[in-house]
């Protein structure tokens, strides 16, 4: 798509109020738990207290004897014979033969009140035979580790390895031996990161209704209503089109709301209770025990560097557990961790491993933060060893368009060097540091994603526009899409209303994931708008009696062009829309595709910390995010993504982690002990939006949501190293760990 980098825009790049702002500051916006329905029942879920146990018997007699208890479901109420990912989804929704992790659902109950449902859940008796369990990824890979399930491994796993290793990823190029021989310094280190949770403040909630005919309705907080529809239908054995899913406003997702958890349970309970709607709202503890989280990782890196900072070769092995099912994002950890630099020779090996933990869900640039932590940490350590400037070394090895990524293909238009330039010029790099203070720098990368996209727009009788998109607005995408449509149409921003549609009114859309909403729905909305503009030009041409090709659209009006230029006064969108009932009927535009032209985004973060040498506590003094946005449609929400990603990365680096006891039970399933960053923990987060427009998008957009969580992990580790002289290789860098490292224990 042709696009002029120096185009000036009327609206793109401005910062108007978001369309849903008023609803969201007045409490009117309706989220997952805010919907009720006549005759509604409340659902509650019985969850395994064991990390790994055979389910011997489930007896719901006492629960069903309570007045007001309307239905109980177990795995027996779900169809048999599912395979592959459908089976994984069903098994994770409700355990079959075995409970695979602490918090795994084993039964569910619906009753007339929430208290009654909870009481009934407590009365459902489940007999378990507790089995040996395994939590840690390296433990799970050992030949004698307890086996979660046999037959999960795909054909990439060599014979003779533990059945818990379900996938092996290998790629590479060049002669590693020669590369290391040519290096002036070769170092190797091992790194670990613990599992963290997306930590959205809104717990999962849904209101589901399904009759015995398999027709159903669902109101749910989700990043993707069509995914909910497809997955629920698969798990229940019903037809997708018979289930209509309406997305509520969504209270955060970060990848964690791209899949199903208890949604099929509400439908199954409803179906069994004569079609009464069933609402299920998870507690925070259920959210932490049974949804999300991300994978934990154990990683080895060996890197070769020349005296001048040139990288000569890298060898990495990443092992990641993603819970009791395949899907740890090991390949993304490898791809993204290796993406920023020309490494010379590369040898990369990864393992996807299962363990007795909740099934990992996507979390903002899945895998990338772990990979970057390992590689950027070692890179930093080697810069220190060779006395090189960390930013200079990154410049020297940075990939540019046309360079080949470590995982194979070449990069298209990217803005990594521009991002490093902007970092270098930022005043934060000149701030003086005191005792026990240190500065850390790290880069990060995310591919960005296109995904199935279907958008409709229609011109209203008064010349305003409505746009229906399938990607829930999780952070201001209504505003960015309205800006692009209004820009394209030449009308006011306020004259565009963007609706997030339910599954009945558009073709299939993938969720708001992969940083795709403003890129993909935005691009489709612009193309849909161009289709409507073409029709409006045709209407004007008909009125003027000239060829449609001889009409152009500018500033919200059709204008005769070419030989007809100036022959007629412009016909405004209001005039065309007002007459459309008598000129051929409604005017609308539609676009559906897998949009091409995805543009990747690089970022660079700089953090200054102070570490208390007596307690190991890390305080963040200042924080800088620099990232390529392609073009910022609504810069405030681009900055918001940068700041939010940084904050989540800071939490991951310093305090957040899943803590298990020796029985494999999660020890910190409340926000009191799952420590996400607080307002008082953070400084202002400075941002620089770099704009290297993406040629694949009509306004140059690159996805911006995910890259920002990638650099904080290594940036913080590098800063702590600078402040203390101690290299932390195991996240989180909790005070206990840092103090122990300082004391040389």
């Amino acid at each position, binding site marked *: 798509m042709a696009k002029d980098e120096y185009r000036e825009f009327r609206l793109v790049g401005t910062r108007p109020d978001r369309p849903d702002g008023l609803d969201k500051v007045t409490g009117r916006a309706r989220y997952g738990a805010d919907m009720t329905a006549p005759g509604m029942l409340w659902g509650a879920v019985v969850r395994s207290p064991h990390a790994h146990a055979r389910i011997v018997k489930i007896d719901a007699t006492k629960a069903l004897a309570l007045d007001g208890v309307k239905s109980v479901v177990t795995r027996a109420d779900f169809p048999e014979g599912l395979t592959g990912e459908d089976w994984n989804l069903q098994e994770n929704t409700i355990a079959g033969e075995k409970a695979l992790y602490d918090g795994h659902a084993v039964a569910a109950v619906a009753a007339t009140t929430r208290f009654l449902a*909870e009481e009934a859940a407590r009365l459902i008796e489940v007999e378990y035979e507790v089995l040996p369990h395994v939590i840690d990824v390296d433990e799970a890979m050992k030949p004698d580790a307890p086996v979660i399930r046999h037959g999960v491994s795909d054909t990439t796993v060599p014979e003779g390895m533990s059945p818990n290793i379900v996938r092996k990823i290998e790629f590479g190029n060049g002669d590693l031996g020669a590369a290391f021989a040519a290096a002036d310094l070769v170092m190797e280190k091992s790194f670990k990161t613990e599992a963290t949770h997306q930590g959205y403040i809104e717990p999962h909630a849904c209101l589901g209704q399904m009759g015995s005919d398999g027709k159903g309705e669902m109101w749910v907080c989700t990043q993707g209503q069509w995914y909910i529809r497809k997955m629920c239908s698969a798990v229940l054995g019903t037809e997708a089109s018979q289930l209509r899913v309406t997305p509520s406003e969504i209270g955060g997702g970060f990848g964690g709301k791209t899949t199903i958890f208890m949604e099929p349970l509400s439908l199954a309970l409803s179906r069994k209770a004569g079609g009464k709607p069933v609402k299920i709202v998870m507690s925070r*503890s259920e959210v932490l025990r049974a949804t999300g989280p991300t994978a934990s990782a154990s990683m080895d890196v060996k890197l070769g560097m020349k005296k001048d900072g040139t990288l000569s070769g890298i060898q990495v092995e990443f092992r990641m557990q993603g819970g009791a099912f395949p899907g740890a994002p090991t390949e993304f950890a490898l791809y993204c961790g290796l993406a920023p630099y020309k490494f010379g020779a590369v040898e990369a090996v990864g393992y996807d491993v299962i363990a007795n933990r909740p099934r990992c869900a996507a979390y903002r640039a899945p895998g990338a933060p772990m990979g970057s932590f390992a590689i950027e940490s070692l890179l930093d350590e080697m810069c220190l060893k060779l006395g090189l400037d960390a930013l200079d070394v990154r410049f020297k090895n940075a990939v540019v368009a046309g360079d080949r990524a470590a995982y194979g293909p070449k990069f298209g238009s990217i803005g990594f060097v521009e991002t490093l330039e902007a970092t270098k010029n930022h005043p934060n790099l000149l701030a003086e540091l005191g005792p026990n203070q240190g500065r850390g720098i790290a880069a990060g990368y995310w591919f960005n994603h296109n995904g199935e996209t279907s958008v409709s727009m229609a011109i209203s009788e008064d010349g305003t526009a409505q746009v229906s998109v399938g990607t829930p607005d999780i952070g201001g995408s209504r505003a960015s899409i309205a800006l692009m449509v209004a820009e394209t149409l030449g009308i006011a921003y306020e004259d565009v209303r963007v609706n997030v549609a339910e599954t009945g009114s558009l073709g299939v859309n993938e969720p708001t994931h992969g940083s795709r909403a403003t890129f993909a729905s935005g691009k489709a909305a612009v193309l849909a708008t161009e289709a409507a503009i073409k029709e409006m030009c045709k209407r004007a041409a008909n009125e003027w009696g000239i060829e449609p090709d001889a009409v152009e659209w500018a500033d919200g009006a059709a204008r005769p062009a070419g030989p007809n230029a100036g022959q007629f006064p412009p016909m405004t969108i209001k005039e065309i829309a007002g007459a459309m009932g008598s000129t051929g009927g409604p005017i609308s535009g539609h676009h559906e595709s897998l949009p091409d032209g995805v543009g990747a985004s690089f970022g660079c973060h700089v953090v200054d910390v102070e570490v208390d040498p007596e307690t190991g506590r890390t305080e963040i003094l200042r924080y800088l995010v620099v990232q390529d946005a392609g073009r910022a449609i609504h810069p405030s929400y681009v900055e918001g993504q940068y700041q939010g990603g940084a904050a989540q990365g800071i939490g991951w680096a310093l*305090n957040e982690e899943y*803590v298990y006891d020796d029985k494999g039970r999660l020890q910190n399933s409340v926000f009191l*002990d799952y420590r996400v960053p*607080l307002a008082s923990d953070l400084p202002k987060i400075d941002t620089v939006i770099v704009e290297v427009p993406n040629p694949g998008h009509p306004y140059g957009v690159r996805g911006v949501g995910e890259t920002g969580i990638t650099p904080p992990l290594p940036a913080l580790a590098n800063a702590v190293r600078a402040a203390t002289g101690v290299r932390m290789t195991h996240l989180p860098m909790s005070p*206990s760990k840092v103090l122990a490292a300082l004391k040389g224990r």
Partner: protein
Amino acid sequence: MKYHTPSSFQEAAQIAAEATGTTRFLAGGTDVLVQMRAGIVLPDELIDLKKIPGVFEMTRAADGAWRIGAAVPGARLGANEDLVADWPGVVEGMELVGSTQVQGRATLTGNLCNGSPAADGVPALVAAGATVDITGPNGTRTISVQDIPAGPGKTTLTKGEVISAIHLPARGENGGDAYLRFIPRTEMDIAVVGCAVNLTLDGDVITSARVTLGAVAPTVIVVEEAAAAIVGTNLDDAALEKLASAASTAANPISDKRGTREFRIEVAGVLARRAAKIAYARAKGE
């Protein structure tokens, strides 16, 4: 669950004494409601003390001693300038409990009765030598705060007994107290280690001291050796080192999700040193 709103502590004690099922007293509710929500405690009888006259009162007697009603929330302690002037350590301990929102409800009495070894409100109360009034089915008694905690989640209160007020002694001249805790974040966490120091001076010399530690043993502990290390000194570096060492030696913590045993032992000494400096400065009126 039955919800009671007695109009006297005698009535409250009576209801509790006669109850056959699980009973909980409700003041601020910031522990009880959390336990109810999580299904850890499902009371049959919930006895709300807030309708009892005087439970929100906070008074300083002519001799300088304080009486703090059972339902006075943390935010009101901090808002009382006289109390802050007399017992800043007690106030800062309570004010560290939870968020601003929790401060609107949580009480010192509740913090004490919850029985958590990590309760932030308790070490400074013990260091101050505070006492509590207890009403039971057989009358009232007054005991030291130190004698209330009996282990994690446990108190020495017997069936039907309820605390009606907390007493702090008169501050007197040249005294100061301080409480510090260590948490990983800046707010909202449970103490990994807590330490309170209460001392009095004659000129620059410490004449008496009490040092207490939280979260390093099943209950709050009073570290006599730590106090002895600084009494008779002007808190010089040697005294501070001895204090820190005594605090670390006295700590006998567990390793858990909030911190390791080694970390707690080490930091107990660090906090003792830091808290003592603050208390000393306060005693000098600095």
